């Protein structure tokens, strides 16, 4: 067991070791330690693009150059700028290298790490310019952000508890145990205005109060790390990059409600996150930060991991608890809410990963600090997974109330290939879209609801003029229809019928009454489904109908897909004036639908054409068009 004093000593020692990564560090001022740290992102995004090979290569190079005692390689969690992976940052300079390949490693080691010359070829340049930026704090993508939940991601080595402690890790737990009563703690959380980041936005303090007030000698704390939205990866990044913050927050929650046991329910599809969590829990136990009599205060708390097995509905809280109990993860009616009757019928507090990640910061910096960030009813920051048709893909954290325009153009760097911004989709399969004319919307819980979307877990998918909104609605409905657990008929049958209508429309067989049928079905499914999955499943359809009704009508009435996506509605043809008669198209056509004489314009037989688009890709003269 570690005492508060020992924790302080450890913090100061670890802080000195990693002070080299801080702003204003004086090079060479601390000769006891490494003169340089090279941070390599080892999150899922970067490891998918060979960051581990980069790391291994670096380590070998350091040995070869005999500077492995001077330069240290540190694996961190996600920096957030995923489209540029693999990413490394060299301290004390703070030099940001991106899109590194294992072949670049030698040059970085020899030039930068040995001789101190920055390798400008591997620096980042802002989209649309070729000015190289070396200091990563001055990159636009980062400097509009405010990191609270992600404060340690990409900053510390998640497999070393000492680095977490160096950033005041476990001091919030110590403060709570030594200085605060359960009631004071809950009051503080209520005052902070923190709302659940898992989707609904329920006030966290209130939920803690319910779980605290429900009498019971056995209670549970549960973390929802099921992250089912197919375009969101913030919870995974927190667990990969800063697992101890979740452990600490859950222990704080345990103290608040009077629980000694917690469970983290995490999807099995996240092997790196699971692995880091296992290591973190083990280290926390070793240091006595989990277990019996924590900080000698008599408080006991321990944690276990439970793996999901690929069912989206298990993200719903009652289904999740049923799944931990070992059954089919079907939701049950609420009330009783989990705070009253949850896991094994005991009072259970369940929060999302990002919700927990905010807690230690709120305790240490105070509720007033947290409440000063954000809007009147949505406090703090929100992490978004920015993806789709956008230059800078990655994970961002911004104050609540940040305009969508800032996210898309300043942080996201705009839309690639000179295309026009069409809409942003938030809330995943439960959400809706924000069309281009509402780009100045300030993003918070209530504004999104007012637009017919929702915050959801924070997936933010950007779409351009080449995306068909009917097709997108169909995509989400396919998802919910497949993931419906089938317990209640409105969801099981209603989503299927809605999907059939959408398939009909996108195949060019839509009829004028389809839209009103969709609307009637949507109302029924929303109002009569048992759980949130069914209740929100129609949202993507309703929202696209609200803002892009003309696209539905074009599909139905004119048998035309304005964005040129729905295959059955496309028609490929060759513009005779532009065609040079080179015959490339005829050669690539898999069904022999193109014919002609060399040096004369070719023609496409639309009867045989399967609309694969291969010819259009190959034509060097832009002579083939689809409409």
């Amino acid at each position, binding site marked *: 067991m570690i005492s508060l004093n020992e924790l302080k000593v450890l913090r100061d020692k670890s802080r000195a070791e990693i002070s080299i990564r801080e702003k204003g560090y004086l090079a060479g001022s601390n000769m006891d330690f490494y003169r340089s740290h090279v941070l390599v992102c080892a999150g899922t995004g970067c*490891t*998918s693009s060979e960051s581990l090979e980069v790391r291994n290569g670096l380590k070998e190079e350091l040995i070869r150059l005999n500077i492995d005692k001077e330069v240290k390689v540190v694996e961190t969690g996600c920096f957030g700028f995923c489209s540029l992976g693999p990413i490394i940052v060299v301290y004390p300079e703070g030099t940001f290298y991106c899109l590194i390949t294992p072949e670049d490693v030698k040059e970085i080691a020899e030039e930068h790490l040995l001789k101190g010359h920055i390798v400008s070829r591997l620096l980042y340049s802002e989209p649309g310019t070729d000015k190289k930026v070396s200091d990563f704090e001055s990159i636009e993508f980062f400097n509009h952000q405010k990191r609270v939940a992600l404060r340690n991601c990409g900053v510390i080595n998640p497999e070393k508890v000492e680095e977490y402690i160096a950033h005041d890790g476990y001091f919030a737990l110590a403060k709570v145990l030594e200085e605060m009563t359960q009631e004071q703690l809950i009051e503080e959380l209520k005052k902070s205005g923190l709302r659940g980041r898992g989707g609904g936005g329920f006030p966290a303090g209130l939920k803690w109060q319910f779980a605290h007030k429900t009498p019971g000698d056995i209670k549970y704390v549960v973390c929802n790390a099921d992250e089912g939205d*197919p375009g969101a990866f913030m919870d995974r990044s927190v667990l990969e990059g800063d697992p101890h913050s979740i452990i600490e927050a859950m222990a704080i929650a345990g103290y608040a409600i009077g629980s000694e046991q917690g469970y983290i329910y995490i999807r099995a599809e*996240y092997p790196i996150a699971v692995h880091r969590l296992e290591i973190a829990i083990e280290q926390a136990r070793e240091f006595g930060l989990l277990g019996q009599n924590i900080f000698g205060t008599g408080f006991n708390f321990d944690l276990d991991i439970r*793996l999901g*097995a690929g069912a989206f509905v298990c993200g719903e809280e009652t289904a999740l608890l049923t*799944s931990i109990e070992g059954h089919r993860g079907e939701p049950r009616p609420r009330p009783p809410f989990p705070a009253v009757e949850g896991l094994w019928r005991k009072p259970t507090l369940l929060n999302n990963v990002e919700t927990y990640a905010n807690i230690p910061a709120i305790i240490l910096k105070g509720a007033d600090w947290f409440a000063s960030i954000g809007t009147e009813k949505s406090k703090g920051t929100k992490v978004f997974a920015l993806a*789709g048709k956008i230059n800078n893909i990655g994970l961002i954290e911004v104050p609540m109330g940040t305009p969508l325009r800032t996210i898309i153009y300043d942080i996201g760097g705009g839309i690639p290939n000179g295309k026009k911004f069409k809409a942003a*989709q938030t809330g995943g399969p439960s959400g809706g879209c924000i069309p281009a004319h509402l780009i100045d919307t300030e993003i918070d819980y209530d504004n999104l609801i007012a637009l017919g979307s929702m915050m959801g877990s924070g997936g933010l998918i950007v779409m351009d003029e080449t995306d068909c909104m009917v097709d997108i609605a169909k995509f989400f409905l396919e998802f919910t229809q497949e993931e419906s657990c089938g317990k209640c008929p409105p969801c099981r049958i209603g989503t299927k019928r809605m999907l059939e209508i959408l398939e009909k429309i996108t195949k060019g067989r839509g009829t004028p009454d389809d839209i009103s049928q969709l609307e009637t079905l949507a109302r029924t499914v929303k109002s009569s489904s048992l759980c949130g999955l069914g209740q929100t499943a129609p949202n993507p359809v309703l929202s696209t109908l609200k803002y892009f009704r003309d696209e539905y009508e074009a599909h139905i009435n004119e048998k035309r897909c304005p964005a040129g996506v729905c295959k059955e509605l496309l028609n490929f043809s060759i513009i005779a004036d532009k065609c040079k008669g080179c015959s490339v198209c005829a050669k690539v056509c898999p069904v022999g639908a193109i014919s002609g004489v060399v040096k004369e314009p070719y023609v496409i037989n639309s009867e045989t054409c399967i609309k694969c688009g291969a010819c259009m890709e190959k034509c060097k003269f832009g002579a083939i068009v689809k409409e």
Partner: protein
Amino acid sequence: MSCNCQCSTEKKNDPRFQELDGIIKKYKNQAGSLIPVLHKAQGVFGYLPEEVQSYIAKGLKLPLSEVYGVVSFYSLFTTVPRGKYVFNVCLGTACYVQGSGRIMDNLKKELGLDIGETTADGLFTLEGCRCVGACGLAPVLTVNEKVHGRLKEDDVPRLISLYRLKEEQGSK
């Protein structure tokens, strides 16, 4: 359902069942142990045939119907053997808007498989999944653990040949 271990006396000598015994023993007394045991068992056998399910049911003292109910509910559990290389195309939103649907169509055509099927030679299985979290590399697919990103439609035949080649070289 096919299984390599025909009868119960042979199970005693099958190292996989011995391993399963250990797993069952370890989890037996924990509440909610069925799902963790199924995860481990699938790790050992590669899939969960009826034989294995009924063995687990006996070991955990649960009705077989309950075990089967759980296995069939969760999409990560499979009751049929899988190919040596599992092609898993990400159909998450980010990949979808970047064209992963067309990658999937191409794979279906090239491998002659529908989602969830395995080639007759046991080499390839085709699957779709929801977001592997490498959205920065969209569209992506995974082959076993390896992530292939920034794909174009015509990468598909190349990828398949790559793994065929790997197989030929491996078997020599």
